[in-house]
């Protein structure tokens, strides 16, 4: 299969039916709606990734108002746009490679995706829109009178890349009227969720809040849209109910997007995608201990405090090999769990005396509710006696430290706690989520993801769940450097690090493209368990939290352990998306 080409996959119930389809259709010539001759090529594949999309909700803050303009007015309004005027700066008419565009009020500059607020275009918005905008204001479809209008004309085959309208350029509310033809617009959440929305002809799309500030919107450049046959031309989400899908040929669509220009910096609740706020505090790779500490405070500690309960509810299954380690310890052993979280491991082996230590007051509170011994403390300064502990565990903790120096220091703390001969078990998230061609459960969950909102961050969602240990060289797309040792020795940056590099935001359930990144945690906004499953408005996805991670390359954890004094590495292995080390204090 040649790469970078679109393919359709068809699944048949029986092999016989598949064979029959192949024999009948392969090599057949058909004529499409535009009169073009097409030859169908079929091929069997061993397996296909099947996305079972469950019921989706409209992005929060999104609304489509149908039939807001009558057919008569539509005709008038379309004719009012003069596309054949000479190209001059007055009305900001430009001819783009794809769609045709005109601006009124303020010109939108595509070089920086912003408006020039000091140079309003003369004439303002065309008079013809006055009464319509007044009407929309009165009926509550819009809350503010817009002062900027962009007219886009899309011919079949035209599109617009996914984007968020620049926060600092425009106020919250952005409305877009579709005339001439319906279209399907794709909304995408930073987590990776894509929601295709039908915008019927003569409908008004209203984007506010999350749909305006956080989700991107775009139109795929193509001549046909996949739509829901049963819904006809009504608005709504295009679901994946294959039996109900059909193709709809696009017509010429003219969109009228009304916006109000912002005069002050944006102060929305979505700082990570906000150009105003990113200018102030972009989360970037830390250059000093102080920055590292601040980054961790903001993107680890604060987040866990906020999500503690939800996080704990998804952390119920202990990982078998950690359990094995604990169960193999002699009765009466003193064990410290540094970064104990909700205390998942503290009660596993009743023959041990285990004390948990975690940075999050709320998570330690959950330990306490379960009658487990735990205290609030920092992994870099564990408030426990040195040389007194028979064993330590550090499960999914060290990867939250943002410099190599701090990561090594955390490992050093574990060694400090151990008595001679004592053992420590360390688990960290691996960069390599695919091992020996087998994907970790974290990646495999991707196809089920959109359908099971509650499962999104279950134990299986993050690595280290039950199953395969397949140690071998990973086949990764991103170059991997073992940074732990070099960074510590060099006392600073390694060659491949870019100064002031911003931390990329990871898309959940995909391979890691960077060792240092922000991983979203998606907390549901108050869904009750008995909430009716079709209630699109109430099934709003909640706020997104970003957690800082440094994912480890093959060998990196082991290398870091080997730099510690009085230590022997007993085991080094890969366990479902984690790199693991057992070390012993000598």
């Amino acid at each position, binding site marked *: 299969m040649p790469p970078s080409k679109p393919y359709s996959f068809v699944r048949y119930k029986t092999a016989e039916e598949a064979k029959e389809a192949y024999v009948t259709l392969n090599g057949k010539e058909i004529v499409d709606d535009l009169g073009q001759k097409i030859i169908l090529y079929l091929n069997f594949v061993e397996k296909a990734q099947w996305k079972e999309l469950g019921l989706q909700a409209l992005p929060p803050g999104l609304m489509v108002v149908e039939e807001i303009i009558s057919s008569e007015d539509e005709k008038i309004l379309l004719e009012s746009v003069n596309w054949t005027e000479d190209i001059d700066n007055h009305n900001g008419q430009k001819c783009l490679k794809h769609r045709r565009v005109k601006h009124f009020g303020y010109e939108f500059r595509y070089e920086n995706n912003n408006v020039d607020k000091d140079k309003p275009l003369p004439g303002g918005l065309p008079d013809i829109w006055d009464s319509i905008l007044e009407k929309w204001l009165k009926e509550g479809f819009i809350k503010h009178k817009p002062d900027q209008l962009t007219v886009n004309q899309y011919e079949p085959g035209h599109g617009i890349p996914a984007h968020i309208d620049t926060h600092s350029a425009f106020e919250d509310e952005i409305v877009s009227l579709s005339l001439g033809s319906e279209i399907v617009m794709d909304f995408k959440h930073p987590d990776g969720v894509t929601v295709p929305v039908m915008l019927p002809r003569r409908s008004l799309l209203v984007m506010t809040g999350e749909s305006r500030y956080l989700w991107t919107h775009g139109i795929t450049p193509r001549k046909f849209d996949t739509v829901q046959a049963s819904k006809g031309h009504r608005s709504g989400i295009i679901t994946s109910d294959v039996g109900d899908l059909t193709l709809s040929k696009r017509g010429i669509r003219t969109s009228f997007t009304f916006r109000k220009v912002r005069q002050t910096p944006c102060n929305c609740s979505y700082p990570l995608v906000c150009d105003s706020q990113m200018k102030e505090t972009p989360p970037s790779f830390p250059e000093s201990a102080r920055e590292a500490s601040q980054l961790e405070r903001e993107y680890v500690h604060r987040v866990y405090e906020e999500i503690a309960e939800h996080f704990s509810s998804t952390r119920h299954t202990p990982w078998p090999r950690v359990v094995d380690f604990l169960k193999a310890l002699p*009765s009466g052993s003193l064990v410290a769990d540094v970064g104990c979280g909700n205390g998942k491991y503290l009660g596993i082996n009743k023959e041990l005396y285990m004390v948990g230590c975690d940075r999050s*007051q709320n998570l330690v509170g959950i330990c*306490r509710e379960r*009658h487990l011994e735990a205290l609030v403390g920092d992994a870099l300064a564990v408030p426990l006696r040195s040389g007194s502990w028979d064993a330590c565990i550090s499960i999914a903790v060290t990867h939250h430290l943002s410099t190599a120096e701090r990561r090594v220091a955390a490992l050093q703390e574990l060694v*400090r706690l151990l008595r001679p001969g004592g053992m420590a078990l360390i688990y960290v998230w691996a960069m390599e989520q695919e091992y020996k061609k087998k994907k970790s459960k974290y990646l495999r969950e991707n196809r089920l993801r959109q359908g099971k909102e509650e499962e999104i961050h279950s134990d299986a969602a993050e690595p280290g769940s039950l199953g395969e240990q397949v140690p071998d060289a990973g086949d990764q797309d991103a170059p991997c450097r073992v940074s732990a040792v070099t960074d510590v020795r060099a006392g600073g940056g390694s060659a491949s690090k870019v100064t002031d590099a911003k931390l990329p935001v990871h898309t959940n359930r995909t391979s890691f493209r960077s060792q240092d990144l922000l991983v979203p945690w998606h907390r549901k906004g108050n869904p009750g368990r008995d909430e009716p499953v079709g209630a699109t408005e109430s099934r709003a996805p909640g706020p997104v939290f970003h957690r800082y991670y440094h994912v480890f390359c093959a060998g990196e954890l082991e290398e870091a352990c080997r730099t510690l004094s009085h230590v022997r590495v007993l085991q080094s292995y890969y366990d479902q998306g984690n790199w693991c080390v057992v070390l012993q204090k000598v």
Partner: protein
Amino acid sequence: MKLLTHNLLSLHVRGVGPRGFPLRLQAAEVRINPVEFNPDFVARMIPKVEWAALLEAVDTLHLVEVPKGPIERYEHDEKFLRQMHHVLLEVDVLEGTLQCPESGCLFPISCGIPNMLLSDEETKT
């Protein structure tokens, strides 16, 4: 917070080293939690106990008689083991403070949880 846990607590500041053991305990609210008696388990804890620290902590709590140290052949002495079991595992400090003997800094115990986080100032080296 059990007294065995208290016995294992020690302040350790990054880059400076241990600054305080034992932490001086002041309890405002204490509860006795019955715990199943496991003589072997208790016997294994005994060698790990720092007795001076334990006695100091117990002193502030005005508890019943506590052995001054491990007695000979304690592993087989049920009376001794039961006493230690009670002291180490059944006494639960719910509210109070822990004080670093060196710096005098106070750390709160609330809802049975000691909070040993040092402020930024204290961690400056």
